[in-house]
């Protein structure tokens, strides 16, 4: 155990671990400090300067996300100097991009928009000058509008530090800075594998889910937590629906085990099969080998199968019947399937594709 140290934040005496930052200590104690570039499990970079706080005897305001606490430190998070600085930062960010909430998919969950509102900014005091980047719209999964990018670098850190795909980085300098793959390529022409982590961490509408565009605004969506149905990792995911239609998928935002909020391309962008028009919707029977499959009722299908299986069992014995349960189905269904084969039919001829 590290020896705790005492600090004062907004007049509250707090005892905390010395390796923590001011931001961590404040957050753990219910004191809100706004942030934009900060993202859990990635390096603290202090890029956006929104988390500025006043520290007694410091020469200037300090970025709370990067400043470790010291014994006896006295911190103030809501002074006029702090708010003025935060307003300046937000107004500069606002005026340097095309932050048009009317058509933005992030409207209602944009962290820049939230801070504009929280800081009560009517409009920026600077003229709005958008950088004029072309919108990257040439793949079906991710849209990128760098005119809405605030260069917080979360996507770069998510790509390099969370997924470790090492595709994204900053390019150019100063007001020409931008984020993207090497050689200024589009995602689709780079070696990006479309895990979508950058999209999930983007605080604004710069990186958004293309399939979700115009499919429902954030407050219209219903979120259901479930487990991904692809590989054996069992990622926890949130599926968003609007009026019974699946709109998009995100890694579960409780960031728990086993995936800590991450997904891969299949989990995030591979779910259109669920509501695909090819889905089977009715039981089908072929009464004679040469016939086509014909739609029937469930009761007819059950009777047909039950009669056939009973007859085969009677003539050839239970071991002439076999069943394949499935690594795709639930535990409950696999349990019931093997119970059916063993107890109802009377054979142990049950297997599944574990070996394939």
């Amino acid at each position, binding site marked *: 155990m590290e020896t705790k140290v005492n600090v004062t934040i907004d007049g509250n005496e707090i005892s905390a671990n010395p390796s923590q930052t001011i931001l961590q200590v404040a957050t753990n104690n219910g004191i809100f400090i706004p942030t934009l570039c900060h993202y859990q499990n990635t390096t603290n970079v202090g890029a956006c300067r929104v988390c500025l706080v006043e520290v007694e005897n410091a020469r200037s305001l300090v970025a709370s996300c990067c400043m470790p606490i010291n014994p006896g430190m006295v911190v103030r998070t809501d002074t006029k100097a702090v708010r003025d600085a935060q307003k300046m930062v937000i107004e500069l960010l606002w005026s340097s991009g095309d932050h048009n909430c009317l058509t933005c998919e992030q409207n209602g969950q944009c962290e820049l928009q939230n801070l504009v509102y929280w800081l009560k900014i009517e409009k920026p005091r600077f003229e709005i000058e958008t950088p004029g980047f072309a919108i990257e719209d040439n793949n079906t999964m991710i849209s990128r509008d760098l005119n809405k990018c605030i260069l917080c670098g979360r996507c770069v850190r998510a790509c390099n530090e969370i997924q470790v795909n090492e595709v994204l980085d900053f390019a150019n300098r100063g007001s020409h800075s931008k984020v993207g793959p090497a050689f200024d390529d589009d995602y*689709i022409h780079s070696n990006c594998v479309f895990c979508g982590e950058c999209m999930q961490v983007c605080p604004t509408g710069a990186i958004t889910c293309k399939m979700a565009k115009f499919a429902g605004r954030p407050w219209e969506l219903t979120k259901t937590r479930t487990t991904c149905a692809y590989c054996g*990792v069992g990622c926890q995911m949130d599926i968003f629906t609007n009026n019974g239609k699946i709109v998009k998928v995100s890694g579960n935002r409780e960031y728990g085990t086993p995936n800590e909020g991450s997904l891969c391309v299949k989990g995030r962008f591979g779910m259109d099969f669920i509501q695909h028009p090819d889905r089977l919707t009715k039981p089908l029977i072929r009464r004679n080998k040469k016939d086509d499959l014909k739609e029937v009722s469930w009761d007819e299908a059950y009777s047909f*199968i039950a009669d056939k299986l009973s007859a085969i069992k009677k003539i050839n014995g239970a071991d002439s019947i076999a069943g394949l349960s499935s690594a795709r189905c*639930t*535990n409950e*269904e696999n349990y019931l399937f093997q119970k059916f084969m063993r107890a109802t039919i009377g054979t142990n001829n049950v297997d599944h*594709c574990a070996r394939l």
Partner: protein
Amino acid sequence: MAGLAAAFGSGAMTNSIAELEFTDVILATGTNTTENHPVIATKIKRAVRQHGTKLVVIDPREIDLVKYADIWLRQKPGTDVAVFNGLINVIIAEGLYDKKYVAERTEGFDSLKAAVAKYTPEYVEKISTVPAEDLKKAARIYAKANRASIIYAMGLTQHISGTDNVKSTANLSMLCGNVGIEGGGVNPLRGQNNVQGACDMGGLPNVFPAYQQVANEDARKKFETLWNATLSGKPGLTIIEMMNAAGRGDIKAIYIMGENPLLSDPDLHHVKEELQKLDLLVVQDIFLTETAVLADVVLPSASFAEKDGTFSNTERRVQRIRKVVNAPGEAKPDWEIIAGISTKMGYPMNYSSAKEIFEEISKVTPSYAGISYDRIEKEGIQWPCPTAEHNGTKFLHKDKFTRGLGLFHAVEYIPPAEVTDKEYPLILSTGRVIYHYHTGTMTRRAQGPSERCPESLIEINPADAAKFVIIDGQMVKVTSRRGVVEAKACITEKSPQGTIFMNFHFAETAVNLLTNSALDPIGKIPEYKVCAVKLEAA
């Protein structure tokens, strides 16, 4: 799984996914983790880049993980046992093994030592082409670690020597005292969402739920009482044996729930003939799959997003799935359909919900006894979880193996069932790509992944391409003793010289028309990773 069960007494991933990020050494073999388990790969990559973990990769293909590896052993496909015996040979010769652990917790060391004696690095180099010095380096990295984890997947098991390959990993891990500790272990990464659960639930021909043997009279009596039925004590047939029995006319009816053997099984021409001979083929699925097209009855089932239930992930963690949307048309959850048929056959199954079935599962499955829907509402629990107070098990075999002492197995290298010759000079190996999943039923209907990977590619080494006069992007024909397919060539150093790689996601390029159905004698896994083929311009 049979290999681990023989060595440890339990055939599941010994440790947890999260531990990979914080271990000293990871040895990855037969797993293209970045493509098949991308989220586990993030942890391996973070371990290497951020936490100083050393990574040893043993794989014939230059997979993405090689970029992150400290050392890469590129063995000839199918020579895994030789490589592992070689690593063990070096570790014993240099006295780097955990003598205390071997003495106290294992048995069979002397026979292992005798068996690996001839697998000197020089001898192994002759078999596998792995340079002797590299083998020694890798052996030292693994043996000198405080905690080292072995991960593997189907690249290790889909060989006729699959069970022996797995036993080799168990040998190496126990030799260095890595089983039963946090951050260690032997960790098969399961390829399908609920393959662990399907095994746990007794979806296997020889066991009831929780691996209770059907041949064991006590187990059988217990289930006869619980289920109020007379049960057979004769172990049943495995999937490939079923197909063969159908071909002989011994199996008359097959009921398939959510599987597509007509794309996933080896030597497809035979599978189709065998399925067509049946008196009754019932296929229950979400799409009209290649297999369903042959069926006498097709039953529409609900997808995972349209029902409640649980999946058990690769690290034995039982997690909830929840109903997100309604099933289309008259499609029903699989459990409702099974219950409907069973009830019609005079064995009533009256369950009102998946939860009610789970309650029965926890009654009859000792390793799941302490798990309930309420307990896994927020976070899944890892079995074994014997009581409602138990927190689940992060890693297995702590202090004691499931079977008591860990058992070393003396295993010998045997060549693959089919070796190359003049007519079929190349090795074909098969697997998945990141954008698709298994037989493609789901991902090929997903726009994004299909856009990124619209067609099957044959990965060919530049030297082989030159030899067979093939250029990048050209259509080529691949022929084995069993069939022929065509696809586009992708010239890449990823494939070693003499080996081509194809995926099995595309029905129009059904690579399993080519593969060999030769089985591992114990695991009954087909040898998907090695068969002999020839290559020519199409």
